[in-house]
């Protein structure tokens, strides 16, 4: 199993404030890591640091074996799905147009990127939306829009997929369906997935590892280990009880 991403004591300061401190974790090929923590814990900042959108002041970040200035070389192998608030839901694009925006990069400047490309077809098929090619994005349900945005993140055939709160605003069946799709993608295509979520219930059954942070790192390990740990209570500053039921988790909150 190849190590796809590895952070070592990663520390990020923004506007004179330490947003992330000493974050150490790694993920191998085909592994789904759930990043959990309360609001303002620095989960999104961690993804942005991996993408090179915010600089880190201390520690090391290695992606596909590259670090430092060489990280730029592997950014095209990272797929990203930002939070739903980052776009306008009524924007006049077709599903295929949305996916095609995922193909844009510095290399495509001054070049034509047709929305009817093989990559767009493949990405839509990968998320089970091949019949939605010409459908208006604004006419789709929240769950369907999330799948299209996932297809956009897959358009450049990445090896590492970073997802920021993809389940926000979805009802429970849509959340389950989305998580199931992620599980299929990692098993079939060997994708390494880092999934940020504040929803422990939907993320825990699908994750191979959980990383719990609240500015600093609290625990990184197998979901059963993390959910039973007192580190979780410390990170969220409240008390959780978890019961394992048939591979899933039920949550009690005191």
């Amino acid at each position, binding site marked *: 199993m190849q190590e796809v991403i590895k952070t070592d004591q990663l520390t990020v300061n923004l506007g004179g404030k330490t947003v992330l401190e000493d974050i150490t974790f790694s993920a191998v090929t085909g592994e789904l890591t759930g990043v959990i923590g309360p609001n303002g814990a620095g989960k999104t900042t961690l993804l942005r640091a991996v*993408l090179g*959108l915010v600089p880190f002041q201390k520690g090391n970040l290695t992606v596909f074996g590259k670090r430092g200035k060489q990280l730029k070389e592997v*950014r*095209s192998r990272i797929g*990203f799905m*930002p939070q739903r608030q*980052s*776009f*306008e839901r009524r*924007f*006049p*694009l*077709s599903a295929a*147009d*949305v996916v*095609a*925006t*995922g193909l*844009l*990069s*510095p290399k*495509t*400047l*001054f070049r034509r*990127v047709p929305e009817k490309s093989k990559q767009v077809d493949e990405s839509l098929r990968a998320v089970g939306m091949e019949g939605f090619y010409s459908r*208006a994005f*604004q*006419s789709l349900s929240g769950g369907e829009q999330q799948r299209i945005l996932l297809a*956009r993140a897959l358009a450049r055939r990445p090896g590492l997929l970073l997802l920021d709160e993809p389940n926000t605003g979805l009802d429970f069946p849509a959340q389950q369906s989305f998580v199931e799709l992620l599980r299929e993608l990692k098993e079939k295509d060997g994708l390494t997935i880092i999934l940020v979520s504040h929803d422990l219930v939907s993320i825990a059954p699908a994750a191979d590892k959980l990383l719990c942070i609240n500015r600093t790192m609290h625990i990184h390990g197998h979901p059963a280990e993390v959910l039973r740990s007192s580190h979780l209570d410390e990170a969220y500053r409240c008390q959780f009880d978890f019961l394992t039921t048939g591979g899933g988790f039920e949550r009690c909150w005191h």
Partner: protein
Amino acid sequence: MSEILSYGFMQRALLAALLVGILCPTISFFVVLKKLSFLGAGISHTALGGIAIGLATGLDPVLTGSVFAVGTAMSTGHISRVGKISEDTVIGIFYASGMALGIALISTFKGYYPELFSLLFGNILAVSFRDLQLMVLALAVIMIFVIIFFKELLAICFDEEMAVAGGLPVGPLYMGLLAAVGLTVMVSIQLVGVVLVAALLVIPGAAAYRLSSNYRSMLAYSLVIGLAGSFGGLFVSYYYPVPPGAAIVLILAAMFALAVAVKYYLEKLN
């Protein structure tokens, strides 16, 4: 029709209506999608400061106004991003400051300045051959920029965070778009004036947005609405005693109302 075309001033006015009728709806498409409507209105009023500087110094007021409008647009983008201040706040400050500078300078003028009134309220019938040359130049520069970077600009309008993550040069492209908005404002001011130019930047795109679920149709509707407004206003002002700028804006406003009504009834039918 042949009577209209027999006048030199009407030939120039028709050509100006065509040029602005293409330019404004194209920029309006991006203004609406990127939610820059207030920026458009702000820049047009800020340009008054540049126009007044031109008149006070003896320079071409259209040139100084253009520099002021483009400078304001790009400064707004830069200050809001570097200083993490919302664009609305920055343009709100520029809007009032530019107007204040213009009013302060104009109050010192002695005598009558016909150019000032043309630029304040617009006069498409007074467009000169040189004005047309400037319009063609501005249209060419802006259209080349838009055509080359259309897919990137569309992606930035849709999801800027994703565009940044994809490695696109979002900062320079956004600044280019703001400069294009500033230049369009200044070109259009000669038609409808400082006071009404925001309508040309907002209404074609806003009406088209109501009617479209696809960006291609939105761009097409925006162009049709913009051209219909420009030519319609010009013809109305030729036959009726209405200033052309006001006629153009009133026709555009009526088309926006029609688009809202059509959208409402189409949704009800479905």
